[in-house]
Each structure stands twice: as structure tokens, then as C-alpha cells.
């Protein structure tokens, strides 16, 4: 890219000319080219190019032209690609080209290089200067119009060009080419007759051409021109030259020496520690300014930043430090009035001085200017000995007199004592005050003028804009742009406001929400302190102080209407949002949306996220202000629209969808929300966030509680309670109190509802629970009655599964096998809803018990087949609990074969996963079976593991089973005397549920213990009991073990 602005704008890409477009676009590109490689703020661009338009419309226009320019300059770029050439970078735009791509900068570089070579290599210097000057094709920057920047920049460039011409003449003179200089200098003087250096070069050239009389005549012409036009005499250098020519001075042929000016050594800055939090570098700049006063130096401090960023705090700190250093401090501030009162801040300044110093000192300083201070503030007349008011004269003259009086009066005062003048909120200055500020700053001596303004609230047509431009170019100006505090500083400030140290998590949220803005941070902390909620992270995330909202609204009001509308939708999406989702809701075309969002980024409302598909509000308070200002109904409507859009994305997390639907509740029904909340709970469950899952499901119940009673509510309540029941069975145990509560309530609902296939998981869960607590028979009977009109295979499968469980619990293994096999035959390939939250394929609930039952019947091959079938159902998806469940069935199968190695392997896997997922029941079972296996394999430590598992808590219904593991482990490690009472305790347990199946093996274990203890008769009786009970239940595997025990006892 090559850009030429030293003449009408020309742009070239790859050597080919580019059509830049309308005059406004050309002006915009020139502005950016002049500042190539540097960000030009939106405010500055608007000020220069759209000063006559209201801010919101001006920003919209700028946005449009930036978009057009991008298309013109990068035609191959798609709307999805970020521009690499015309880059959006807060607070404005940057033309990302090397400075040498712009002729203006190339010119400046050539001139600078040429000038630096003048003293040593005039030929090389001349070449560089000629090269630079050749770049000029006409009047510079004609496309920029007549704005302030354009005028100033043109003047600067003209000056630079003339200086380059003068340097070129100097090089030519040094190279002995006076005749050419003499000819060309006349042409330059015709254009610029007051350039004394050129007059001097003309005289030198004529003198060197042996035209001394002409040289002296040239001097006379110069003197006449200056005198007639300007009323001044030639400067000392030109006069000296005339004198030198007259006296034929020798040095006329020598090269002038280079003068260097040494900078005075400044004292070290004082310690910057103080009440201000952070800002070490800014404080150092303030101290520099104050220290300079002692040396008689003036300084203009321009402090900028958004509302609440800490400008006023910095000014207060500056006041404190300046006063401590002996300076008089006088402060005023612009006010937000329509129109603001003229000279108001300056009246404040004078009043502040009277409050600080002897009024006579002020009277002395303003003595030559009559009663001007009293014109600014009549109250001053009462305290300052001022002359009587004079009769009013010409208004313009009177105003000029005020300007002069204030500027010179303050200067006179500062001549006696160093002075700090502070103007806060300068973005609201009235025109007269802004002009006065400009005048004082430009002429100040021994005065520090500190000015603070909100760059975010500075209207393009604000009077301060011109003043800022002038102040910014003063050599004494120090510009300080305040940004958010660092996190560590936020912690200090918030803790100070709260009067105690805040936790890291609270500080994190405060920092995140306020982006380090001290005002927001302080206000937010204060509100939280007043609510005694400063340590509650949730509350910290919710509050938006009213004063903060007011400040943010002002900022938003300056944006284009269309952008505000887009942002109000984005605010509903969240602090970080997907651009694509926003597009779906606002339904703007890509380019329009991109332009709007780009503007929001440039003005600092949004910022880019790490992921280019996302954008983020610069701080959450801004988003919340936009959000809250929309009103509850519209927010709900938008949340509903967001939820609709999210539903089209299968990958959308249910938690996000549920969040939006929940917020949409005023316009959507609980019937729409509850299933989503249940899905979200399932996602939370998958992440083992059980508390969150419980909260979502409990919220669902509350929502349903507000709904009228009826079938719809019943079906949804069944869904929610089934989820809660299953979840608590997993995390608390199969018959824990929460599971009991929810399955109990489900029994009532099932009794009255007209069952649909969607209710079958609820029926399944309820039946399983009833089975587990020993009410299998009644519950199955109830289920048969409820399903009397339901003839589907799935309904039959539910009955078979739980009828089978009932038979299994009752010790009827053969009947249980028969029922489960019947159930397995009717299971359809698909169509049964998975059990909610645990996402469990129902067929597993038939195949797995059948595997265990056949193993107990000694049919180990069939057992393997059924368990493999269950695993086959379990393969799709990620179902951790199912893996645990089936792995535990693997333990059962291996245990029936007393395969300790296999039990150990499966138990280890189950234990690891149960610990990871936090399932206590499976931890206890896996630990006990692992301990048993270890003991059987010769590790005595296994016994302790079993004991620990029992002590850690196992359900009473499982105690017999645990006693069996414990007893057999003790026997395997040679401790029959300890095993015996434990086994006896297991046998004393009531015959509830499946505890009965431990009994034959407990009898066998007892027999082994008694044999080892030398009590054969009792051992034989125990074996007999084992055989009898195993045969009664058809428990063939146990029967075989009893027979083996009988043989051992007989031996």
C-alpha cells in the first residue's frame, strides 16, 4: 500500500491505483495516513470530519465510512475477516502501514536525514533534501477540508517544506552553487517574503557571486518588506549578516556551528507513596510537575479517562502534594448545564485562591485589571479589596479584558508564589472558559495547569475539544491516560472500603465486574457493605449501584441508535457472547452487524475475547446497565428469543438454555422451562456437580408448585422427582432419605395419573425403590393395575423386571430367572425413554440381574452372556454410574466363582471410579470385595480394608453380605476365632431383601471357623444349614460350595 497526501490523495495497492471513494472517505483515509501506525481516536476523527453532527450520528457515519474504506482497500477480504490494514484498536482506528508507505512521512524522513548530513556531507544532504521535496505534488492534504487539524497540519507541513528548501539552499551554498540559490531564493521569497533565513541565503549567494551591492540591496528589500508589512525590524542574524558583508568578514564562507542545548538536571522524584491506590507511574509524573515549579517551570497536565477511572482522585492527590510543596492550589470544574455558565470554573479558581491566601495578594495581582475578579464572581468583591465596578462598555472588549485580566492576573500572582490551577470535568467547559484555559496554558510560567476530562463523554462539538488540541501540542504538556486498576490494587481498594480484607474469590468477582474502575469498585463495595453482603460472591455478582448506572448511561447515550439496540440484545446474552448467536437474534446482515460491533470495540464498550467468535463487554456493570434498562418484560422476551436460537444448536449446554428459559418465565410457561432445567440438572450430574443438579431440580419443583394441579403438572413432577430419586440413590445410597422422600411422593402421583410412556421411567424408579425397601409384591401389584390399559412391550418389560426382582428378593431364584428371561424377550430394540439423570438404558436393568441370578444358579456361561448383553446396551455414550453398576455385577459373577483375582481387578476399577465420582455405597462395596480378594490372595491387609468399609458405613440391608466378605477374609488369613462372631452377626440379620443369599455361604464360613476351632459337630450342623438354605432358594452355586465344605468338614 502506498499513499500520497502531499497533493490530492492517491492510493496504490500493489502498484495499482485504488478508488478511495467519496470526499469524506478520502478525508478519513488522509487523517489515518497522516497518523500511519498510530491509533487515531474516534473522538478526534469525529471532531475533525463530523464536527457539525451530533455524536451518535457522527459515530454512525464514521462506522460506515470505515467499512467502505476497508472494502476499497482490501477488496479480497470477507466480512468475517478482521481488517489487517485499517485496524480497529480502542479508542479508535489505526492504518497499519509502515510510515514510509505515506509520502508525508517519507518526506519528513528525507528532510531529517538531509539535515543531519548538512554539516558533514553537503552533497549527500542535498540529495536527500531534493528527494524529499520531490514528493510534493501540490498543496498538502487538500482532501482534509478546513478542519482544525487540517489547518494545523498544513501549516506544519508548509513550515517543514520551507525549512527543507532553506536547508537545500544551505547545502547548495556549501557546495559552491550560489548562482542557483540566488535565482531560486527570489522565487521562494515571492511566496514567503518574511523568511529571514532565505533573505540571508539570498544575500550570501549574491555575496558569493561577487554581487555585494545586490546582497546589500537584498537586505534593504527585506528590511522594507518587514517594516511595511509587519512593522518590525530584521532579526539580529540578518542584521549581523549585513554588517559582516559591509566589513567583508572572513567567516562568511564558513559553515555555522551546531548549537546544542543541555537539559538541566532534574532532582529525583520524591517518594510517590500516598493515599492513592496504585498508579505509581502517574504519581511520579505529578511529582515531576510539582518539582518543576521550584525551577520556575510550567506544566500542563492533561488527565483523561472514562467516568470513575480516578481522574478527580489524581487531581486531589496532586493538590495535596503541591500544597505540601508550598504551591497555592486553586481548583474549578466544568459543570453539566445547558448551556454551562460562562467562566464558572474560573470563578471557582479565584474563590479558591481567596480561601487559601491573603485576599490582598489577589488584589495586588489583579490590580491593573480593575474589578474583573468581581465580574467573574460578585461575591469576591466582599472579601477582596477591588476597585469599584466600571460602567459597561463594548461587550466584546469587556470579554477580551476578562481573558487578559485572568491570564495576566494569575501570571502576576504566580510570579510571587508557585501556583497549581486545576480544571476538572473539562469536557463540560463553556466556550469562554475553554478559551481562557487555552490562553493560560499557552502562556503559563511557574504555573502547573492540571486539566481532567472524560474522553468517553467528550462531545465532538464540545468547546474543550479545541483547547485540548492546543494543550496537547504544547511542549510542556504531559498527557496521562488513566485505565483500570490492576487486580492487586483492586484488592487493596475494596478491602479499604470494606474495612476488612476480602477473600480472593470476592476480589476476583469485583475485579471482573468493574474492570478495575475505582469508582465502580468503590460504589459496588459500599452497596455490598451496606447490605452486609460483601463476602457473598453471588451477591457481588448481582448488584449494580445506581450512581454507576447513571455514569454508564451517559456513555451509552453517545452511541448510534442502531448500536445501542444491538448492545441491548448482546447484554441479554451475557458478558461474553457469541457473535453468531447475536446475529441470529438481531437478524442483521453480516456487514452491518460487524460494523456496529467494531464500533463498540473501538469506543471501548466491547472488547475482543481470546476466541475470535466471541466478544465481551469491557465490564459487567456496563452490560448490566444495558440489561436492566430494558425492563423486565422485554428482557424476558429476549431471553425467550435467545433460548429459541440456542435450541437450534444441539451442542448448546442445557445449563445455558435453562438459564435463558428461566429468565424468560414471564413470557414462557413452566412446562417449557422444567424439561430444560431437568436436562441442565443431568449435565450438572454428569459433571458430578450434584448440589447444582439438586438446585435445578428443586427449582423445577418450585416452579411446578405455582402451576395449577392437573395431569400436565403431575407428568412433569414425576420427571423431576424421578431425577432427584435416581440421583440421590447414587450419591446417598439406594434407600437414603432423599430417595425415600421423592419416590414416596411419586407413589402418590403414580396412583392418580394416567400413565404415558414418558412416565415409565418414573414407574421403574419407584418400583425399584419399593423393591429395595421390601415392598416388591405390593408395588408390582400396583404397577400391574396402573398399566392395565397399557399393552406396550415396554410396559410389560417394566412389570417383568420388577416382578423378577420381587422373586429374586423372595429367594425364588428359578422363578426370578424365568421372569427376567421373559422380560428380556419382550424388550424392544428402542423406544423406551432412558432413566432420567442417570441416563440408563432400561434393558440393562433386566440383563444385569439375570446375569447375577444365572451365576447364582451356577450357570456361569449364561451369566457371562447376559452380562455381556448388558454391557452391549451400555456402550453408547458416557454413563459413569452405569459403568460402576455393571462392573459391580462383574464382581458378583467373579465372587460366585470365588475367583479372587478377577474380583480384585474389578473391585479396584470400581473403587477408583466410585471415589472419583463420590458414590459412597459403591466405594464401600468395592472396598469390601477388594479386601476379601486381597485376603484370599494372601494379603492380610485385606481384612482391615473390609473392616474399614463396614465401619465407613454400609446399609443395614447389606450387612449380611459384608459380614460374609469379612468372615471369609478372616478365615483366609487364619483368624477363625475372630471370623466366627462376625459370621454369626451376619446370620442374625433379618431375612430382608437379598441378604438371604449371603446366608448359605455364611453358614459355610461358620463351618470352616468351627472346624478350625476344633468344634466339628457344630461345623457339620452349619454345613447342613448351608445346604438346606441354598437348596431351598435354588442357589446352586452356594449349594456346590456347601457340598465342598461338607467334604472338607468330613475330612
Amino acid at each position, binding site marked *: 500500500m502506498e499513499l500520497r497526501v502531499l497533493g490530492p490523495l492517491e492510493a496504490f495497492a500493489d502498484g495499482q491505483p485504488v478508488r478511495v471513494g*467519496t470526499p469524506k472517505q478520502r478525508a478519513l483515509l488522509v487523517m489515518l495516513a497522516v497518523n500511519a501506525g498510530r491509533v487515531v481516536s474516534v473522538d478526534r476523527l469525529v471532531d475533525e470530519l463530523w464536527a457539525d453532527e451530533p455524536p451518535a*450520528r457522527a459515530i*454512525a*457515519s464514521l*462506522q*460506515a*465510512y470505515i*467499512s*467502505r474504506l476497508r*472494502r476499497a482497500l482490501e477488496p479480497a477480504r470477507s466480512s468475517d475477516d478482521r481488517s489487517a490494514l485499517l485496524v480497529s484498536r480502542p479508542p479508535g482506528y489505526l492504518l497499519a502501514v509502515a510510515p514510509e508507505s505515506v509520502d508525508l512521512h517519507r518526506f519528513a524522513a528525507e528532510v531529517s536525514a538531509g539535515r543531519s548530513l548538512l554539516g558533514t556531507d553537503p552533497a549527500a544532504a542535498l540529495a536527500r533534501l531534493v528527494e524529499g521535496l520531490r514528493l510534493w505534488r501540490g498543496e498538502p492534504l487538500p482532501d482534509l477540508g478546513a478542519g482544525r487539524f487540517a489547518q494545523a497540519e498544513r501549516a506544519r507541513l508548509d513550515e517543514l517544506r520551507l525549512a527543507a528548501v532553506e536547508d537545500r539552499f544551505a547545502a547548495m551554498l556549501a557546495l559552491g552553487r550560489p548562482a542557483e540559490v540566488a535565482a531560486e531564493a527570489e522565487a521562494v521569497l515571492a511566496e514567503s517574503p518574511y523568511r529571514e533565513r532565505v533573505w540571508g541565503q539570498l544575500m550570501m549567494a549574491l555575496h558569493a557571486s561577487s554581487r555585494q551591492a545586490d546582497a546589500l540591496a537584498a537586505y534593504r528589500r527585506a528590511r522594507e518588506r518587514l517594516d511595511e508589512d509587519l512593522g518590525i525590524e530584521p532579526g539580529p542574524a540578518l542584521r549581523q549578516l549585513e554588517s559582516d558583508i559591509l566589513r567583508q568578514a572572513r567567516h562568511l564562507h564558513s559553515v555555522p556551528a551546531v548549537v546544542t542545548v543541555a537539559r538541566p538536571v532534574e532532582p529525583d522524584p520524591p517518594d510517590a507513596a500516598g493515599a492513592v491506590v496504585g498508579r505509581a507511574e502517574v504519581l511520579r509524573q505529578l511529582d515531576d510537575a510539582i518539582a518543576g515549579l521550584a525551577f520556575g517551570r510550567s506544566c500542563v497536565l492533561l488527565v483523561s479517562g472514562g467516568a470513575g477511572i480516578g481522574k478527580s482522585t489524581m487531581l486531589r492527590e496532586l493538590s495535596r502534594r503541591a500544597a505540601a510543596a508550598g504551591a497555592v492550589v486553586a481548583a474549578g470544574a466544568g459543570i453539566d448545564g445547558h448551556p454551562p455558565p460562562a467562566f464558572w470554573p474560573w470563578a471557582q479558581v479565584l474563590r479558591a485562591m481567596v480561601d487559601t491566601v491573603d485576599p490582598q495578594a489577589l488584589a495586588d495581582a489583579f490590580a491593573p485589571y480593575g474589578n474583573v475578579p468581581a465580574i467573574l464572581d460578585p461575591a469576591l468583591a466582599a472579601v477582596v479589596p477591588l476597585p469599584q465596578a466600571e460602567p459597561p462598555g463594548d461587550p466584546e472588549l469587556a470579554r477580551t479584558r476578562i481573558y487578559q485580566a485572568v491570564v495576566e492576573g494569575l501570571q502576576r500572582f504566580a510570579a510571587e508564589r508557585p501556583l497549581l490551577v486545576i480544571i476538572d470535568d473539562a469536557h463540560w467547559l463553556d466556550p469562554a472558559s475553554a478559551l481562557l484555559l487555552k490562553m493560560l496554558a499557552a502562556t503559563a510560567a511557574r504555573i502547573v495547569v492540571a486539566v481532567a476530562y472524560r474522553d468517553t463523554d467528550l462531545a465532538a462539538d464540545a468547546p474543550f475539544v479545541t483547547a485540548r488540541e492546543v494543550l496537547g501540542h504544547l511542549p510542556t504538556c504531559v498527557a496521562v491516560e488513566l485505565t483500570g486498576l490492576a487486580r492487586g490494587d483492586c484488592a487493596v481498594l475494596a478491602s479499604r472500603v470494606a474495612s476488612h480484607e476480602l477473600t480472593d474469590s470476592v476480589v476476583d468477582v469485583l475485579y471482573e465486574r468493574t474492570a478495575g474502575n475505582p469508582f465502580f469498585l468503590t460504589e459496588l463495595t459500599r452497596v455490598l457493605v451496606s447490605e452486609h453482603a460483601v463476602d457473598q460472591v453471588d451477591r457481588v455478582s448481582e448488584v449494580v449501584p445506581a450512581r454507576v448506572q447513571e455514569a454508564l448511561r451517559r456513555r451509552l447515550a453517545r452511541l*448510534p*441508535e*442502531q448500536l*445501542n*439496540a*444491538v448492545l*441491548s*440484545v448482546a447484554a441479554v446474552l451475557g458478558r461474553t457472547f457469541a457473535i453468531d448467536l447475536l446475529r441470529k*437474534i*438481531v*437478524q*442483521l*446482515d453480516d*456487514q*452491518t452487524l460487524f*460494523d456496529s460491533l467494531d464500533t463498540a470495540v473501538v469506543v471501548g464498550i466491547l472488547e475482543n475475547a481470546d476466541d475470535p467468535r466471541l466478544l465481551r463487554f469491557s465490564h459487567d456493570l456496563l452490560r448490566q446497565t444495558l440489561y436492566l434498562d*430494558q*425492563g423486565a418484560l*422485554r428482557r424476558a*422476551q*429476549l431471553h425467550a*428469543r435467545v433460548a429459541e436460537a440456542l435450541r437450534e444448536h444441539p451442542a448448546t449446554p442445557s445449563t445455558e438454555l435453562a438459564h435463558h428459559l428461566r429468565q424468560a418465565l414471564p413470557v414462557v410457561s413452566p412446562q417449557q422451562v422444567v424439561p430444560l432445567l431437568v436436562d441442565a440438572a443431568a449435565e450438572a450430574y454428569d459433571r458430578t456437580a450434584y448440589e447444582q443438579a439438586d438446585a435445578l431440580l428443586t427449582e423445577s419443583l418450585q416452579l411446578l408448585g405455582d402451576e395449577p394441579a392437573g395431569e400436565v403438572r403431575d407428568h412433569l413432577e414425576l420427571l423431576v422427582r424421578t431425577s432427584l430419586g435416581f440421583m440421590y440413590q447414587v450419591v446417598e445410597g439406594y434407600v437414603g432419605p432423599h430417595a425415600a422422600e421423592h419416590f414416596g411422593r411419586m407413589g402418590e402421583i403414580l396412583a392418580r395419573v394416567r400413565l404415558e410412556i414418558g412416565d415409565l421411567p418414573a414407574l421403574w424408579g419407584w418400583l425399584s425403590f419399593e423393591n429395595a425397601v421390601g415392598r416388591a409384591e405390593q408395588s408390582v401389584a400396583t404397577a400391574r393395575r396402573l398399566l392395565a390399559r397399557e399393552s406396550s412391550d415396554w410396559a410389560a418389560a417394566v412389570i417383568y423386571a420388577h416382578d423378577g426382582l420381587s422373586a429374586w428378593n423372595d429367594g425364588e431364584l428359578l422363578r426370578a430367572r424365568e421372569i427376567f428371561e421373559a422380560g428380556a424377550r419382550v424388550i424392544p430394540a428402542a423406544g423406551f425413554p432412558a432413566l432420567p439423570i442417570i441416563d440408563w438404558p432400561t434393558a440393562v436393568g433386566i440383563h444385569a440381574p439375570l446375569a447375577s441370578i444365572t451365576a447364582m444358579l451356577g450357570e456361569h456361561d449364561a451369566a457371562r452372556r447376559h452380562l455381556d448383553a448388558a454391557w452391549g446396551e451400555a456402550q453408547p455414550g458416557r454413563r459413569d454410574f452405569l459403568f460402576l453398576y455393571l462392573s459391580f455385577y462383574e464382581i458378583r459373577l467373579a465372587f460366585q466363582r470365588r475367583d479372587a483375582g478377577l474380583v480384585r481387578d474389578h473391585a479396584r476399577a470400581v473403587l477408583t471410579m466410585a471415589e472419583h465420582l463420590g458414590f459412597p455405597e459403591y466405594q464401600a462395596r468395592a472396598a469390601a470385595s477388594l479386601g476379601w480378594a486381597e485376603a484370599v490372595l494372601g494379603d492380610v491387609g485385606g481384612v482391615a480394608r473390609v473392616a474399614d468399609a463396614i465401619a465407613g458405613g454400609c446399609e443395614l440391608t447389606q450387612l449380611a453380605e459384608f459380614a460374609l466378605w469379612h468372615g471369609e477374609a478372616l478365615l483366609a488369613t487364619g483368624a477363625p476365632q475372630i471370623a466366627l462372631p462376625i459370621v454369626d452377626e451376619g446370620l442374625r440379620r433379618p431375612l430382608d431383601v437379598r441378604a438371604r443369599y449371603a446366608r448359605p455361604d455364611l453358614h459355610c464360613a461358620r463351618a470352616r471357623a468351627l472346624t478350625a476351632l476344633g468344634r466339628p459337630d457344630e461345623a457339620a450342623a452349619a454345613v447342613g444349614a448351608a445346604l438346606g438354605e441354598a437348596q431351598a432358594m435354588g442357589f446352586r452355586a452356594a449349594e456346590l460350595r456347601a457340598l465342598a465344605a461338607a467334604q472338607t468338614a468330613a475330612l
Partner: protein
Amino acid sequence: MSADVLLLRAVPLARRPVVARALRGWRLLVGTPADPGQLHLQWWELADPAEPPDALPAALLATRPSGPGTVQLIAVCAPDGEHAAAAHAAAAHAVRALIELLRATSARKLVASLPSAGEGDASLLAAAGLGRVTGLSEIALYAIEL
């Protein structure tokens, strides 16, 4: 419907029936009656994105290309009835937003015509920055350089 939440957006073909429904009984503030079925017209709606997809917009505009770099504003319509002031404000908002949108395109000029003096709402065009083009008598032509 609060004005600061309204967006001007191009109406996709699928929503043309909504346009047709809206136009029945609406008031034509500027231009000539336009048929939503005409594919060469670009329809624009000033709408609240929070509203459901079948909700009526706050104002409707129809444009069409008219020569190189020129876009013609064919129609400006808003609901008729009791809230005439609000409808007028919405229409003015829509025209302003249209100008802003067009500025980001290759369009260089937006023109609109009123059939004859006294018909149509010239103030609406003037408020949006469109100036009267002099020299024509039968038709009042308004234009703005983008």
C-alpha cells in the same frame, strides 16, 4: 416499544408475508404504494429483536437501486391509527437508520420523491437530512449524498 431498542434490518423473503400483513391498513407516509411481492424491491423493517418472528415491525421502508450509486426510497410506511406521532417518529427513525446503513455500502445517494406538493410527509424526509432538489415542478424530489 421503546425507540432505542429498534433495529433497522433488511426483511428476508420469508418475512414478506408479515410485510404484506402490516401494509394492510398502514399509512403510506412517503412514496407510492408498493407490493411486497415485487422481488426487485428491498424491504426494510424497523423492528424490536425481542419480538416474536411474526410480530409486526414499527415501520417499513422499501428501496430499489436507481442508477449507479443511487438508491431510491420507494415507500415509507407506519401503522395508522391513534398513535400517529409515535408512528411518525418510528418512520423518521427508520429513514435515519437507512441512511446510516447505506453509508456503509457502495451507495452514494439516496433519493425519494413525493408525487406532488401536499402529498406525502416532506418533513419526515427533511428531518432525516434529505434536501429538496430544485428545478422540477411535477414531482418533488428529495435527495441526500451519502
